[in-house]
């Protein structure tokens, strides 16, 4: 019996050690797989975008048989650089694909241009049938998929008079089919009898009610004025709000009022309200609900760090499902957490769950689910039969492999509660070394509680990871965000320091093994904190970090509006030069006592490589210990999977040397 107990203990110990095993960068960082999926209105199929063998593919999944086939493979479809930007069902027989292609020009004669057009793919009738691909050749865009009408959709054309047409997908010509004298472009459908609505002026957005009638439009009244007009049958459009582009772009008007100018991008799920994006460039990460008649305004969603390019809406109800963001030059999907909306101040689980698509009868649904230690999954649910299957994942190679615990807490710094997220590895002997990862920004960016790749990678390699939502971060309150004003090198750093102290005091954290890893502002913070607090931070990794704050503020890539904003939120490089110099790592290097690793992209257009070069010169001058790596084709983001692997091999080697 005693032997059995001892054996059980040994096995258990070995299991817990085996459950914790370092994951190498090449096994962790791989290209994303499924990025988007939509259920057909009849619930029989799912159209999804997958990245397979290095190319994008549009796949069709039969929900009954759980079988998948490829409808469109970009590498077979075109030899040019291209991407699928969006997919929509047109009834249950066609999938519309917003397709974008780069046409390389002949040098000095034709310049390289991108062209975007709508492909319409007819679902094959039977097994082993090829999908037919049609296209809309008239310039414009898909504005409503009319999910309950097979074959029909609404398409907008803009010009001196902008119009909406109802188009029949069956009358389109095949993609690249030559138009003979007997044929008409797009089946001759762009004519008066198919017109649904029209308005004078260049329309940029149309808004529809639940009956698919256009009820409002955003259009240019003249070269300077954009107006939101409501539409009623038989009546002239009524302007309910207008904006002067000149005023909005004027650097003199970068006031809080202008920064909070909300432009409608979609009609919301309640009457007379619109989903709006915040106009301010540095703030295009927030979605509001606005009623322009009553003045009602409500913030409903903030994305953590990247600029919102469009909304993801449920086709019939117009419920907001999420947003599309621009990240590293690609479009990524970020979904709303329905549970978070319901939480109303109660503790929220670090699990994101959203119904992103449903059949017309709502008996079949598609759910997106993500947890702090589990990358996103797309789950099909048949409410009739109770069937529930995972039809795809964002990072399938990591499914079920990451075992971490997330602790959310806060530390009081002055009058503010500074929230932080601590990710603890599972099955690792304690106390654990700690990596502090200050996020970039620093204003209007935040660390979220869902899946974060770099955090999980470090945790999978035995490090506890601390992420601090210091003052200036979004995702909390307006006051919390505004408290970051003029605190670049002051209280923001103090917030990170105090949170680190609180966590380093834990028994399960090795207080003598703390290192910083940060990117952009995070790289700046990593360097400054190591200089300021060498007894706590034993090393720093500075990726694409600012080293000379005034140099950053004098960069030409800032628009005039951004320049005005930066003066208010960071400092004036003329009036405040001395104080900006005092918070710049490049002038503080003499005080550096611990090793630092500087990594920078040679083509970084946000924080120029000059920042890294200046730091290097000063480090050499003062004989400091450092490592230096320039990524020749690197920009301001981590890059693709291959670039991430290379980066994290180096970072991990550095960390293992010092903590």
């Amino acid at each position, binding site marked *: 019996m005693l032997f059995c107990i001892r054996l059980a203990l040994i096995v258990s110990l070995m299991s817990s050690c085996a459950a914790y095993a370092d994951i190498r960068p090449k096994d962790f960082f791989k290209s994303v797989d499924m990025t988007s999926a939509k259920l057909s209105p009849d619930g029989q199929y799912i159209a999804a975008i997958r990245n397979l063998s290095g190319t994008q593919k549009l796949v069709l999944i039969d929900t009954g048989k759980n079988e998948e086939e490829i409808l469109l493979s970009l590498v077979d479809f075109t030899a040019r650089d291209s991407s699928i930007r969006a997919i929509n069902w047109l009834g249950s027989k066609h999938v519309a694909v917003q397709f974008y292609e780069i046409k390389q020009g002949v040098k000095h004669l034709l310049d390289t241009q*991108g062209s975007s057009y709508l492909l319409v793919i007819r679902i094959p009738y039977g097994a082993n049938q090829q999908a037919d691909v049609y296209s809309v050749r008239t310039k414009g865009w898909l504005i409503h998929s009319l999910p309950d009408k097979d074959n029909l959709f609404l398409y907008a054309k803009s010009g001196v008079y902008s119009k909406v047409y109802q188009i029949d997908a069956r009358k389109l010509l095949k993609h690249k089919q030559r138009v003979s004298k007997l044929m008409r472009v797009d089946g001759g459908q762009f004519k008066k009898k198919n017109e649904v609505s029209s308005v004078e002026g260049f329309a940029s957005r149309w808004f529809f009610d639940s009956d698919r009638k256009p009820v409002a439009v955003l259009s240019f009244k003249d070269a300077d004025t954009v107006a939101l007009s409501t539409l009623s049958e038989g009546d002239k459009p009524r302007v309910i709000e207008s904006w002067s582009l000149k005023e909005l772009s004027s650097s003199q008007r970068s006031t809080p009022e202008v920064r909070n100018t909300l432009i409608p991008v979609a009609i919301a799920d309640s009457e007379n309200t619109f989903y709006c994006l915040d106009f301010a460039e540095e703030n295009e990460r927030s979605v509001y609900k606005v009623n322009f008649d009553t003045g009602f305004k409500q913030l409903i969603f903030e994305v953590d760090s990247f600029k919102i390019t469009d909304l993801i809406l449920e086709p019939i109800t117009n419920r907001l499902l999420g947003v599309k963001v621009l990240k590293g030059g690609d479009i990524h999907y970020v979904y709303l957490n329905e549970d978070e909306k319901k939480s109303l101040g109660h503790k929220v689980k670090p699990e994101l769950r959203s119904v992103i698509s449903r059949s017309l009868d709502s008996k079949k649904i598609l759910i997106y689910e993500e947890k702090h230690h589990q990358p996103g999954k797309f789950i099909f649910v048949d409410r009739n039969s109770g069937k529930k299957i995972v039809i795809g994942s964002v990072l399938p190679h990591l499914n079920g492999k990451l075992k971490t615990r997330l602790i959310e807490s806060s530390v009081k710094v002055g009058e503010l509660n500074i929230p932080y997220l601590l990710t603890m590895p599972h099955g690792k002997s304690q106390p654990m070394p700690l990596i502090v990862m200050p996020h970039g920004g620093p204003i209007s960016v935040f660390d979220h509680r869902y899946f974060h790749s770099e955090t999980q990678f470090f945790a999978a390699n035995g490090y506890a990871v601390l992420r601090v939502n210091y003052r200036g971060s979004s995702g909390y309150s307006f006051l919390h965000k505004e408290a970051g004003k003029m605190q670049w090198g002051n209280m923001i750093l103090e917030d990170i320091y105090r949170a680190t102290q609180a966590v380093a005091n834990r028994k399960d954290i090795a207080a003598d093994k703390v290192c910083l890893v940060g990117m952009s502002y995070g790289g700046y913070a990593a360097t400054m904190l190591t200089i300021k607090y060498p007894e706590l931070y034993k090393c720093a990794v500075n990726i694409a970090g600012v080293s000379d704050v005034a140099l950053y503020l004098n960069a*030409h890539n800032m628009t005039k509006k951004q320049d005005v904003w930066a003066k208010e939120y960071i400092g004036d490089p003329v009036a405040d030069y001395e104080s900006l*110099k005092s918070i710049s790592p490049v002038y503080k290097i003499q005080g550096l006592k611990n090793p630092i690793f500087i990594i920078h992209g040679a083509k970084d257009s946000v924080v120029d490589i000059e920042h890294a*070069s200046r730091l290097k*010169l000063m480090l050499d001058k003062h004989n400091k210990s450092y490592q230096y790596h320039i990524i020749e084709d690197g920009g301001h983001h981590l890059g693709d999977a291959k670039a991430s692997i290379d980066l994290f091999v180096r970072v991990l080697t550095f960390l293992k040397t010092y903590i």
Partner: protein
Amino acid sequence: MSGYSLRLLISIIFFQKLSYALDDPLVKLSTIEEAASLKVGYGYLLVDLDVGGTGPSIEFVRLKTGDKLYLGQKQKYAVKGDKKLIRLSQDKQGFYVTQLQEGLYQITKINAPYFDLPYKLSTDRDRRWRFSVEAGKVNYIGKLVIKKKRSTKYVGVDLVSRIATDKDRIKSLLTKLPEQVLLRHGTGFRDDFYSTFIDENKE
């Protein structure tokens, strides 16, 4: 003041003004190897070019600043003398020099015609588009990039300081100048980095 002294003073002022008026508005760039010796009161302007398109050019003016080489916070913006023009021929790449009188300069416009795009960028009064020249020195003003952006109808224009990134390259080029003069960071706004680095090197 005697009549003679007064006439002498008036003549000096007249000829100074005349020299400004007769100053050629077209400023020519040359390679380092072809650079002429420095005139008195002049400094070399050193720029790293990466430009494309059909005949871009930059227009600039000199500013009144007293004895400073950048404008202070409360200092008024005032132009001194006439506009000057530098033509950048197609596909100019690399380091080029010219000579300018000591002073602070404002690039007011960049013309970057590209095929069917008559692109002009007004940079007037924008502090980031200023540069300074100190007499008797090589004043590096940065890398000027004028390039069409891929797949768009926009032209990217940038003047970025790379004094640290390109320091060794710049220093090796300066040995080819007809006379050996000190290198200076010729930004038109305060940037203490290079002077701090040099000073610290001396310590």
